[in-house]
């Protein structure tokens, strides 16, 4: 069985489209998206009157004239993983003053995009044999789960044990606390209980278990992120990474002793390591560049036959 695993695409439509094509491209039997599929930013496209608009992407202002130019700009924004929205200067001012309204706008774009992506998956993968699993991550709001659960071509993995060709995969996108207070994070002891609640449903020997835990294990090298000061500024010019992974995840791996453990969350910490006999992988993320970082794993019987990290 060949598994393709990617994670943390954060609203990048380019990465999602590539993910949909990854099964065919890599001849994978199973495709797993590890979490954090929603974007982080809204970009206003502001109407200046007539056919004039402007928008700013990556700190560069663009003057736009005509519908074609606006659409092209919006596509650039979408490719980057952000959500464009058309507005006027007055509406923009109102939005700035009304955080609830801004939250609603974020929610509608995030959920609307996920719904659209599920539709794309249904169309793209029609008639293809691959199974596709998605497990939301700590940055994904809870409403995403319902959309995934309702999708015809995608299987929701959160909090479940799923059977895959003789193996069982236990998943959760919850993480230990972050400085950003995201949707799915909780203290280590609570997180450990959450993971145990899922792994308690495993019914196969440990060498036929796959863990799909969004957060990487603490101190594994797969969790090295730039150390931050109290103001969330990287210390030492970003040159001094620190382990920020989950001790609960590490303990769960040590207790469960799966053959494979899949992670994401820390985009910079692309790599693989072993904890006991478990191969742990974090393929990293370069969603803003439209590069789909992934891991291709061949499972044979009760072992990882081989694996490779990809940059597609």
């Amino acid at each position, binding site marked *: 069985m060949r598994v393709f695993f990617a994670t943390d695409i*954060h609203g990048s439509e380019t990465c999602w489209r590539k993910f949909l094509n990854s099964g065919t491209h890599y001849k994978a039997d199973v495709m797993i998206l590890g979490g954090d599929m929603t974007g982080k930013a809204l970009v206003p496209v*502001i109407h200046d009157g007539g056919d004039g608009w402007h928008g700013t992407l990556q700190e560069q202002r663009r003057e736009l004239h005509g519908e074609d130019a606006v659409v092209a700009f919006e596509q650039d924004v979408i490719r980057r993983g952000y959500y464009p929205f058309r507005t006027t200067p007055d509406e923009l001012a109102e939005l700035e003053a009304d955080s609830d309204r*801004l939250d609603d706008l974020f929610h509608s774009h995030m959920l609307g995009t996920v719904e659209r992506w599920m539709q794309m998956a249904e169309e793209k993968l029609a008639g293809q044999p691959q199974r596709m699993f998605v497990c939301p991550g700590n940055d994904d709001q809870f409403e995403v789960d319902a959309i995934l659960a309702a999708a015809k071509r995608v299987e929701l993995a959160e909090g479940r044990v799923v059977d895959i060709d003789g193996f069982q995969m236990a998943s959760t996108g919850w*993480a230990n606390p972050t400085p950003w207070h995201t949707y799915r994070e909780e203290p280590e002891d609570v997180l450990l209980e959450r993971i145990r609640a899922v792994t308690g449903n495993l019914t196969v020997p440990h060498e036929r278990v796959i863990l799909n835990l969004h957060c990487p294990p603490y*101190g594994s*090298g797969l969790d090295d992120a730039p150390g931050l000061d109290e103001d969330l500024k990287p210390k030492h010019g970003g*040159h001094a990474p620190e382990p920020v992974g989950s001790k609960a995840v590490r303990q769960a791996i040590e207790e469960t002793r799966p053959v494979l453990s899949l992670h994401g969350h820390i985009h910079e910490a692309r790599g*693989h390591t072993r904890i006991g006999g478990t191969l742990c992988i974090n393929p990293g993320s370069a969603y803003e560049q439209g590069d789909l970082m992934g891991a*291709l794993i061949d499972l044979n019987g009760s072992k990882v036959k081989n694996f490779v990290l990809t940059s597609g």
Partner: protein
Amino acid sequence: MAAADTPAERTMFVRKATGLVKGWSVFDAFIYSAFAINLMALGFGYAFTGVAVFPTGGLIAAIVLSGLFIVFEVITYASLIAVMPRAGGDYVWQSRVFGGGVGFVLAATGWWFILWHWVPIYANILILEFIQPILNVLGENGTSTFHAAWWNPVHGTGIFVASLATAAIATIVVSIGMRNYARFQKMCFYGAILGLLVMLALFLFHSKADFAAAFNRQTDIYGSHDPNAYGKTVAAAHSAGVQYKGYGAFPLRATLLLVPFMLFYNLWPNWGATLYGEVRGASDFRKNIYAMGGALLFTTVVVVITFAAMAHAMGYTFYGILSGEYWASVTNAPTYWFPYPGMLAAMFIHNGFLQIVLLLLLSLWFFGWAGSVFLSSTRVIFAAAFDRILPEWAAKVDDRTHVPVAALLLMLLPSIPISYLYAYNSNFYGYTLDATVVIAITYFGTTLSAIILPWRRRDIYKASPIAKYELAGIPLVTISGVVFAAFLAFCGYKWFSNDSYGINHSNSLKYMAVLYLIAIAIYVASRIVRRREGIDLGMINSEIPVE
């Protein structure tokens, strides 16, 4: 949940999401770059003595001119980071543009194998700028066998012991982790700057007569006071027919010959580049320019000021004369002094303890930088292991200490026999003369990847914050890359066509070729082994269709 990014018109709203950090400190990144183009260790430790090889060139002009061309290196690397901000640097960029084979061969040679050979080169600087000056102050004149060993910074037990010490320092730095190293380096920077300021003050507040007297007095440590050692040293240069150009001289052709020498010290500002950043855009591009370019500007200006201060105190050409002693073009001087400005400034101080304090402060330029000989190499080894070119164990990190044991051993173990051969085999020293060239070739490969990036990886480039930077419709990264590549090609031509640089050495070229062949063999063997295992390494960088 959402937050604003600017007080003016809102151009973007970001929500609270993992990884959305604020901007990193330009100053912190500046420190890394300033240490990498280390004016004291690499500049005064070797590069500037090149004036003795091309005495008709203008040293100050060469320093400034080479710095101007390195600006294009800064722009090129900052551009690559903006397009592909990934740890792994040159290896990742070359792999993604040219494919894994080219990326691995150039990165393995330029960031891994050749760094083994930099251990004795670092050790050479340790001897010249730390051990010898300290022994001088202590009055150890090199007459005993033990002391004599330290007076030969190229061959013998002194350089071997210093190489082991350098390797030990680098091993400790890698073992304590980047966070602790960053703290240590920052402390070293402040101490090193303090030492630099004291040194400059000593030069500025003393006259040439003061220096001549201090220089003459230093002959006491050789057991016989020579009241005119300074004059005799100048005379020795005259009798050898060596004449140096003045401080502001800019004879173009001769100065251009000196420029390739300067790359030994100022080719490395990219070592301080910060590779992280998300939802940031052009500001991180500019910050990398400011950090690396700022370090380049700072270092160049400080070097120019230091030479002006030295010219005031001891005469500008006297630096060239002492360099001539080091390069053996001035042979009849009454004493031998490596032109380390720290020691020359310490001569003004009449108190041994204070002399040592100054030398220790200035030695922080070395100790804050020494770990770099292994640090970047371990990252390249990791990146190659993650791409399955190297075995999985190469990326092994100790569970308890988090030390990258295997990568560290892959640096440490080969460096010891190489240091031994360097120290005790008179032929092997010649093999290592291409140490800078090999890295320059890796940079050349990276620069070529930058030049074609806008076409080769068009989607990624177009989605990057630098896509708008063009001149006459040509991407800025291409323009800067072409200028820097041309500059490297010029230096390469000079290195390989002019024997004076000591690089156009047949044994060294053969040895360098062997290093490339080893890298190619590893890659080819890896592809074969992995294919047998069912892994096609070509798949690593194959792009998935979007539509």
